[in-house]
């Protein structure tokens, strides 16, 4: 059977006045039913643009998909016209965004915003849709759900807003759920609740989930597999356990080193990765990470490492890692 989501060689380019920039460069990724794949990397490495490419919601201009396939339950949706995508967004793919407060329309009630997605994809009547919206709010653990239907978003907390967004995303039982930093804007305690909720909803429905985050702590809790992105390219892919145990790419190792560990000795200073993500229009000739890499070799500055498979289930794009 076809996987719920299979991305092959997806490339998205930004066409700007200062030239073309490859924001997503040949990304491949597959997510099985009930599986969670985390997409990890610093800000500006192309995580969100990858997600928006899959949704075909890129700001065009300047961004456009220039190559690759996005297979949804076996069907490539990249060539679909916009009308075809309308039936897919919200129905087959649900998406959750980073800032729940600004993700909801301030002048529409919670009910209207949930009912809208139901009416777009089902033939529920107005009252049935309202009843279903109520069910959905209870499903996502909204306290006092019946009353919240008539509230406007500004009366809700960030966590409650995110529950509404989640309710909208899962309203039509999509097979794929994309969560773009769903907990970043939330308080720590609320983060844990939202993560637990997402895990539960996913397990119950067997959804394939793409979880975009820069927080490796969250990755460890939620993901089955991890794809590490740097400057628009996948640099490493592994299962969560393998990745945290033996990160192969120096960038992955840097990210893990920069994550605070609870209970670690206080005096121990967090490691950081020197330098910044290079601008997309000024990528170095060889490996994009070379200028910041602690294990950089002469070869890294000349040619770009391709993804190789040093062990089953692992992929890495690094010359140093190949040598071990």
């Amino acid at each position, binding site marked *: 059977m076809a996987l719920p989501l299979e991305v092959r060689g997806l490339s998205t380019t930004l066409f700007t006045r200062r030239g073309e920039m490859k924001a997503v460069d040949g990304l491949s990724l597959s997510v099985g039913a009930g599986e969670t794949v985390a997409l990890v990397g610093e800000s500006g490495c192309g995580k969100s643009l990858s997600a928006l490419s899959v949704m075909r919601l890129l700001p065009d201009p300047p961004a456009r998909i220039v190559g690759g396939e996005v297979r949804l339950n076996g069907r490539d949706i990249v060539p679909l016209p916009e009308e075809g995508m309308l*039936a897919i967004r919200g129905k087959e793919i649900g998406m959750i*965004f980073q800032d729940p407060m*600004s*993700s909801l329309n*301030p002048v529409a009630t919670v009910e209207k915003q949930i009912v*809208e*997605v139901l009416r*777009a994809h089902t033939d529920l009547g107005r009252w049935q849709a309202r009843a279903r919206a109520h069910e959905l709010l209870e499903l996502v653990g909204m306290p006092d759900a019946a009353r919240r239907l008539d509230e406007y978003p500004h009366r809700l907390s960030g966590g409650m807003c995110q529950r509404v967004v989640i309710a*909208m995303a899962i309203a039509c039982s999509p097979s794929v759920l994309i969560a773009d930093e769903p907990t970043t804007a939330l308080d720590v305690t609320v983060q844990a609740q939202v993560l637990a909720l997402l895990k539960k909803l996913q397990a119950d429905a067997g959804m394939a989930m793409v979880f975009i985050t820069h927080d490796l702590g969250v990755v460890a809790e939620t993901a089955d597999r991890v794809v590490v992105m740097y400057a628009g390219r996948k640099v490493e892919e592994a299962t969560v356990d393998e990745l945290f145990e033996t990160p192969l790419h120096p960038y992955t190792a840097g990210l893990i080193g920069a994550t605070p560990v609870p209970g670690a000795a206080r005096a121990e200073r967090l490691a950081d990765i020197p330098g910044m993500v290079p601008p997309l229009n000024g990528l170095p000739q060889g490996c994009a990470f070379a200028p910041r890499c602690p294990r950089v070799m002469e070869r890294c500055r000349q040619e770009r490492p391709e993804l190789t498979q040093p062990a089953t289930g692992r992929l890495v794009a690094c010359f140093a890692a190949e040598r071990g």
Partner: protein
Amino acid sequence: MAGELASPAAPPRITRGSSRRVAALRLLRRRLIQAVPLMLGVVVINFVLIQLAPGSFLELMTAENQVSDPATIALLRTTYGLDDPVWLQLVKYIWALMRFDFGFSYRQNIPVIDAISVHLPATLLLMISSITLALAVGVAAGVVASMKVRTFWDTLVSVAAMFFFAAPSFWLGIMLIVLFSVKLGWLPVGGMATIGGTSSGAGGVLDILHHLILPTLALGLFYAAIYARVMRSSMLEVAQLDFVRTARAKGLSRNQVTISHVLRNALLPVVTILGVQMGTVLAGSVVIESVFSWPGVGSLLFDSVSSRNYPVVLGIMVLGSLVVIAANIAVDLIYMWLDPRIEIR
């Protein structure tokens, strides 16, 4: 997931907006209370300003009627209370206003309120039709321009808006008359009704509407130009917001998103400037009324100023301020209805 749940009965319907209705009433009450000192200020300032103007209506009146008998003049001065000190006149005026007595118009020999109330409906009609036209045309043009941004239609809207914004309304009025009345003969040159025509029933209403078209265009297109520009940029700004992307991610089409999510949010700045402009619409109607011989308060004001009929001038100022204040309260309520985030503490 949720689909497996048994479908329960519809949740209890909560009377939506009952708390908002309370809030709206509270806003109304607060604005009405605030209006009292505001009106008092308007009366005092206008009264003092008119006292500063040279000459009094008495001089004009006696000169016109060639009255030179000092006893008659003294009698008139007492009759109109002109011998009192200014502050006492002011206090008496305010006291009279509280009983809705605006004084007496010597010119027409009727109470001021009667003189104004003959003309006020025509002005209100012109104001309302102009604002309605401005909102409808401006908002529609702004929406079209924003949806077809950087295309021919966008440019067309921009150029038209620039033109109507820059054209002086009296000039525009004259040009409209030249084109539609003189050259084409489609619409009347001026006035509010055909002389000797039917003035009652549906025919009368149609006749008034027929006369209303040109003045409405002359006054309203200027504001339509402003609203078109504001609406366009507001639509483009709102279209960038996160919740628009959320709506698109739900599978709504671009048009659905524009209508049900962008439009209402984008209207807010238009409503804001609408409130601010109420006063200028009234002032603008004075000019347009004289161009089109529209029998409104504007022409009465013009006559009253030139005949130094100050009680009428003052009365128009006061009633005009009342209209503007009332319109602003209405705008506040509309704003509140559009944006639930506005709550009065």
